[in-house]
């Protein structure tokens, strides 16, 4: 009994740092944002604490629908493209590459993290702009006569986003495939499934946890992306992230807060759906 109590007390102390940290840095800011979102904008960027739902009603103004729509399609396209690019890479590293190559290839996947995302996005600018490496190469080899418009459009945003999020898709899929019991693949072949059917019926379904984790890790940050559209997108390529950033830059904190909370709510909803769809409890013990 005494030991139990002591254990409980110890557990509480061990939890304390996490509780303090989360309270100060997650719960408190959320409460502040919630309060501000219900307030009104005053002159010169001040906030008038006269509570109403004005900001939320303002957020569903058709003016902003285009940004929401662009956000959803860019995030969706980013996720799908990431899956398309990542799956073969993860598959190769997990199931095909010789053991000594695995670690090296994984390091290559992670190397981009050594440089700040902003700097890497600027690097894309140098690649994509009209006198950039790609256009220069295309023109000198005579593929095109004049530079292609690669920068400041949705294409550029998509390129930047897919590039930035790729590791977050490769790694979870890799983990799922790495954990896959290789004998299951042999069993499928033994039962008459060729390589294609083995992939469709065994490899793919068993890598689903990785696909879902990757989708969550890519889609959700993509919803809130603002660096890529800001640097690579044109004036029209505005996403929710830019919208929110603009509000704070223009000192309209209440409206920015309302937009932030709506985005957070949407993300939580999506996460809940993903968890429910993604992990059937029975088969994954």
């Amino acid at each position, binding site marked *: 009994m005494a030991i139990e109590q002591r254990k409980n007390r110890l557990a509480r102390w061990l939890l304390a740092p996490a509780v303090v940290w989360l309270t100060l840095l997650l719960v408190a800011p959320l409460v502040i944002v919630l309060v501000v979102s219900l307030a009104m904008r005053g002159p010169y960027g001040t906030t008038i604490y006269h509570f109403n739902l004005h900001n939320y009603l303002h957020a569903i103004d058709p003016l902003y629908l285009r940004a929401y729509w662009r956000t959803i399609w860019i995030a969706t396209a980013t996720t799908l493209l990431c899956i398309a690019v990542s799956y073969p890479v993860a598959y190769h590293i997990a199931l095909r590459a010789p053991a000594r190559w695995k670690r090296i290839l994984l390091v290559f996947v992670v190397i981009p993290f050594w440089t700040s995302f902003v700097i890497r996005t600027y690097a894309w600018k140098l690649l994509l702009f009209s006198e950039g490496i790609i256009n220069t190469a295309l023109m000198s080899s005579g593929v095109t006569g004049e530079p292609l418009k690669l920068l400041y459009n949705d294409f550029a945003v998509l390129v930047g986003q897919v590039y930035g999020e790729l590791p977050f898709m490769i790694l979870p899929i890799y983990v799922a495939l790495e954990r896959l019991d290789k004998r299951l693949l*042999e*069993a499928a072949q*033994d039962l008459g499934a060729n390589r294609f059917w083995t992939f469709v*019926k065994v490899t793919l379904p068993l890598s689903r946890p990785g696909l879902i984790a990757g989708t969550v890790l890519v889609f959700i940050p993509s919803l809130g992306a603002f660096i890529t559209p800001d640097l690579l997108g044109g004036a029209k390529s505005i996403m929710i992230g830019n919208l929110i950033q603009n509000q704070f830059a223009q000192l309209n904190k209440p409206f920015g807060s309302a937009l932030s909370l709506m985005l957070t709510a949407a993300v939580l909803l999506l996460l809940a759906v993903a968890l429910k769809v993604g992990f059937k409890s*029975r*088969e994954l013990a």
Partner: protein
Amino acid sequence: MEETYEVEVENVTRRFGDVAAVNSVSLSVRHGEFLTLLGPSGCGKTTLLRMIAGFDTPDEGRVILGGQDVTDVPPYRRNVTTVFQQYALFPHLNVFKNVAFGPERRRIARDEVKRRVRDALEMVRLAGRDESFPNELSGGQQQRVALARALVLEPRVLLLDEPLAALDLKLRKEMQLELKGLQRRLGISFIYVTHDQEEALTMSDRIVVMNAGRIEQVGRAEEIYERPLTEFVAGFIGLSNILQGMVEAMNGEYSMINIGGVIVRVQSNGAKPGEKVKVMVRPEKIRIAGADSDRALAGKIDSVVYLGDSTQLKVMLESGQIITVLEQNREPSSSIHNRIGERVSISWEPESAIILRG
């Protein structure tokens, strides 16, 4: 007319790096035969099985199934199926779908698939668990699903890779009988890999004893046990005593062997007089008598272990070698431990001793 075999393995070699896991092995499996590949771990038995299944390709030699060379044919086009060690059931599919996996890959109507799966599950006495997932089943039940999944395709040959290794002893005994019964009823060939000599002896029509990538001996259970060809086989299956001796003379089907100065009569294997040989005798074939018997090896009882139905004695010969003797306890005995230190002589029937090769 030449008999056609279900499986023929011709001079197959498979190397991993510098090591030949399977070293020029040849083997034929008859129709409806229960053949066991027996050997210690690392002897190449599983590698051999994998090459028959098609998961591995020989570096040299050929694999022939039903008269057709399938050496380079992928596993999904071979008419053999496998029961894997640890079963390798698909964790994301329920029992029904696991068993239906094979039939669904062939162009079979859905009703027919359903009927076959039901039959297969009934055959392994697992009806009514269609909806369960593998992780909800016990080891024995998973084993049955694995069997049903492999048998539903009506293969000509079923390959089994240590299928009972993960089960507890009692269940293992039950499954041994059940597997054997199933094999007889279906009349198909089983190639069964195990390192468990008892399993091999109870189930097999023929046993292939393997060691270090090579076949040591092929034969029926009693041949392997009673007439082992090599010291390895004698030592791997059952208990054995091996004595060094020299051939003194040959006398028809018997050889006279000098073991430590005593001449014993042993079945001949063609070894010439003057040759050094190893003589093997099973412990239960040895008789113990009082000291000073003629033509018997003299020694002293070193230890006695009471085993219930039998008693195991260790007799130290004058040469210092320890011989194990197993005596049936036909009569109630009381004071067995008093026998330690007793001077005895041991002997056996000439037919009971074997001259080992090499």
